[in-house]
């Protein structure tokens, strides 16, 4: 029987949580780790970011990385421009975390720099690690014991779910519209080409047609524009998502205004003032955070409010953390409140038909707002299964406690798959698709090779499928049969 062994690809991922931390660590694992690192890393005495002419001359000489030794080094891109400087460590297999050759690059943790550095390795031939893949490799290479195996299965499962959620979130409506349009034009073009190949006796030979070159041009344009959109980052977001939820008039919008430090949301005494979802990006000690205010959850006859409530639920499903705001005075919720109480409260008062799933319950922080009315002081209480923070949004009392708590969570929480890497996955897939489309176009123009164009377009679509989901050959045939009358 075959030995269970790890994939032979060399993989890369950010090992530190995303965000603006002090240090950002990239980890490479696989047979080509050293080779890739040597292409990016240089040793220099000077700390100057200028590259001297001597260095340029010696840039062909590969830096020798001493095993298990912390080198101070500079990281360069392929044009020889300095990206960052930091520590590089080389662990030859099997004496490494994964059992394979591992290289770690420790730089300054800014997301843009790290992302750019990852890009260098992808260009060299590395692949972005799948969620949990480092641990998976470690286990398959006998670097972890059996007891840890369970944990790995859980890790793969949970981080995949989280990665999937990140991916959905990073696809804003506009981005996913663009991707879908791109995919549609790619499928249409493939339809013509594959039909011409598989049904040469039908009267549909499009390879000779100008339609194909036009279609190719259109696709290249679309991809370029999608890439621009993605790279601008305007439509993509990063950071932990904290959703403020609760019944109407519990003070959710006031809380948003407190955290954002300005009057973002309209606050009135009227229940149901907030109809739509409001987003605010804030920093807590440099760590990015999205605060999302939602419409109060209740059964409402108002159509606009209903839509707002629907959107609120969508946000809750995607949240990393939920600040469940209750009116400490009106809702009669004491300090020793438990999760069971919270659940009962919700089912009784808010949505009797909506049951909170366990995974949502785990994300709840209970905010007892309006303590000024009870003459209490702000405080944080850790009950067995629930954190309760007592504050007064109106008087800006206890907000610092909440900030500190959020910071603590961000520090501990393994967000593994951040928005940034979700986005990196997408742009990487789109860039690879673009390469294939261009190669195919060249084949068609230079060699008139229809089958090679078909092959490149299939590969391009496979790349996009990593974002949009599987498209099988049977799906393609189905589209051909419904578009053309095939029938010899």
């Amino acid at each position: 029987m075959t030995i269970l062994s790890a994939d032979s690809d060399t993989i890369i991922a950010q090992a530190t949580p995303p965000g603006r931390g002090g240090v950002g660590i990239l980890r490479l694992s696989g047979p080509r780790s050293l080779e890739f690192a040597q292409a990016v890393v240089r040793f220099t005495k000077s700390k100057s970011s200028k590259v001297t002419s001597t260095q340029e001359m010696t840039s062909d000489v590969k830096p020798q990385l001493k095993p298990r030794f912390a080198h101070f080094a500079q990281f360069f891109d392929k044009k020889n421009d300095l990206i960052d400087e930091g520590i590089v460590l080389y662990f030859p297999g099997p004496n490494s975390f994964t059992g394979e050759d591992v290289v770690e690059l420790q730089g300054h943790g800014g997301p843009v720099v790290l992302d750019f550095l990852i890009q260098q390795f992808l260009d060299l031939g590395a692949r972005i690690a799948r969620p949990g893949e480092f641990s998976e490799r470690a286990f398959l290479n006998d670097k972890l014991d059996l007891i840890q195996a369970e944990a790995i299965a859980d890790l793969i499962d949970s981080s995949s779910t989280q990665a999937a959620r990140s991916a959905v979130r990073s696809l804003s409506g506009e981005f996913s519209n663009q991707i879908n349009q791109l995919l549609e034009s790619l499928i249409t073009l493939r339809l013509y080409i594959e039909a011409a190949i598989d049904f040469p006796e039908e009267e549909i030979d499009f390879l000779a047609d100008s339609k194909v070159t036009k279609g190719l041009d259109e696709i290249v344009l679309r991809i370029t524009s999608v890439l621009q959109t993605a790279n601008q980052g305007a439509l993509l977001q990063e950071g932990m998502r904290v959703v403020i939820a609760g019944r109407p008039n519990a003070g959710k919008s006031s809380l948003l205004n407190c955290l954002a430090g300005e009057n973002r949301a309209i606050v009135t005494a009227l229940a149901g003032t907030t109809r739509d979802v409001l987003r605010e990006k804030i920093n807590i000690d440099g760590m990015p955070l999205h605060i999302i205010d939602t419409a109060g959850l209740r059964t409402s006859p108002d159509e606009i409010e209903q839509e707002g409530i629907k959107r609120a639920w969508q946000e809750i499903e995607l949240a990393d953390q939920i600040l469940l705001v209750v009116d400490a005075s009106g809702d009669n919720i004491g300090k020793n409140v438990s999760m069971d109480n919270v659940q009962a409260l919700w089912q009784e008062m808010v949505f009797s038909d909506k049951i909170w799933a366990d995974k949502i319950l785990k994300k709840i922080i209970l905010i007892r707002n309006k303590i000024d009315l009870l003459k209490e002081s702000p405080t944080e209480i850790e009950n067995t299964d629930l954190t309760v923070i007592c504050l007064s949004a109106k008087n800006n009392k206890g907000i610092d406690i909440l900030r500190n708590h959020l910071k603590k969570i961000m520090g501990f929480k393994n967000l593994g798959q951040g928005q940034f890497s979700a986005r990196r996955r997408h742009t990487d897939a789109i860039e690879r698709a673009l390469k294939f489309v261009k190669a195919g176009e060249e084949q068609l123009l230079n060699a008139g090779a229809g089958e090679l164009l078909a092959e490149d377009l299939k590969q391009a679509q496979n790349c996009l499928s990593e974002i949009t989901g599987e498209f099988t050959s049977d799906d393609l045939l189905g589209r051909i049969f419904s578009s053309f009358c095939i029938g010899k």
Partner: protein
Amino acid sequence: MDFPTHFDVIVIGGGHAGCEAALASARIGAKTLLLTHNIETIGQMSCNPAIGGIGKSHLVKEIDALGGAMAAVTDLGGIQFRVLNSRKGPAVRATRAQTDRALYKAAMREVIENQLNLTLFQQAADDLIMDGDQVAGVITNMGVRFNSTSVVLTAGTFLGGVIHVGLNNHEGGRAGDPTSTALARRLRQMPFRVDRLKTGTPPRIDSRSVDFSVMSEQPGDTPVPVMSFLGSTKYHPQQVSCFITHTSEKTHNIIRQGLDRSPMYTGVIEGQGPRYCPSIEDKITRFADKDSHQVFVEPEGLTTNELYPNGISTSLPFDVQLELVRTIKGFEKAHITRPGYAIEYDFFDPRDLHHSLETNCIPGLYFAGQINGTTGYEEAAAQGLLAGTNAALRALDKDQWYPRRDQAYLGVLVDDLITRGTKEPYRMFTSRAEYRLLLREDNADLRLTEIGRTLGLVNDRRWRAFSEKRESIELELQRLKETWVGSESKLGMAVGSVLGKPLSKESTLADLLKRPEMNYSALQSVDENSTAQGQIAEQVEIHLKYAGYIDRQKEEIDRLKRYENIELPDSLDFRQIKGLSNEVKQKLSDSRPQTLGHASRLSGITPAAISILMVYLKKRRNLAG
């Protein structure tokens, strides 16, 4: 009575699957019985008179590479040969032969009757002999008991066949043969999932009543292609042309008026028909804006006047058929010799099979051909070869074999059926193969003949011819890679004139051949040492020109191969694996994949699920010590 001889393998059915199954089993050395209800119909082409075409010729050449008969028989019966897609690149090129039914059948019968280890017997099979949960032989309708170690069932459309012409229908197999209801009933009692499919044929026409002068003639290719790697045009009979004509708006009106008597449109037929081979009534309904459809007028043979009008398959009542045919250009006075019909038949869900085509629940029982939900002679024959091979290997106590998706279209065919099942008659297309550039019809022998030799399927004659060919290719490739051409040399200048610009630097002939402006025959015009011919020149050129793409596909295959080799033990309980979602657990439990690769191709199985399975297997292994 018990028949006195015990057989290793019994093949039920003498169609295209049955023939290749029986031949493969016998070639391997298993004592084989071919049981058919009618020896006269062995190798019968019951539908269109053609072998090959896109995707299909790939299968035919693979059968040939594994020592099967279909390609050689096609060379003996083919009356028009063409290479389709000749300008779209070698990977999608496909040879198609118009075939004389009588010549084809006679040639196949001759091969069968002269095969060592193969015995024929004419009698319908009514029941299976069981030994516990295993199959142990076949009982005929006269009550003769044939005992065997393996049984290959290739019952085609005969199981529960119902023929429809208009609103009339009757039980029957193809082309006037009886149906096998007793066996169908027996199999329906076994734990197989059974469903219905439908297919149809056009009415046949007497050529003496047809005006060919108003149709466009479609001659065969020159030089005339051959189907078998060992074939030659000297085996071909006389070559003839096909013709093309079209339906008109008038034809479509007649069909529309007849739809209320169509079994398809009145709900009498419940089976699913193929989307790529719709009946003419389907075509005009689904593509109402098209005012004309192509009709290929194909001769059925050299010694018959019957024509096969490909493209107007129908199950409309006979009076409508006659009227619609006569609106087609050239068919104004056409006489129909046999009405078109639709046939519904039972097929077994192929997801209940192993990749070897052995059934999951009855060890020793193999299914091949249309009963697995496929359509086409080529698809049937390829499965027959695989099932026959494995039935024989089992009887001789050897390991089962099947090709991977990257090795053969046969591998794609079997894997598609077993991992995804089918909802319509399954037909091969090149777009179904993810490694289309590797799976070419021209290299089927290079992909499979050596394996076939190891399995015992390939005889000495084929093996010698193949070994010589392979060696010549290697030698020529080596010469091209080692021959350097200077830009100033005589050869360099000559090559420059072919390219239209002088060489900029010294290059090897191999590098020069990779350029789009260059090909082997152009090289031959300037280099007297480039002497390779035919199949060898072709292989050398493809090998060099496609090197980049082929290497990329090979890398991808290597990456995926490790999953293919990881077996999932029968004892694995997917429901016990922590970390898998309930949906994934359900899918895996239902399909019971045999390898991790098989699991990864099931729909809805994510890479994360595969990782978790890997980790689980490793843990299990470590625990077992």
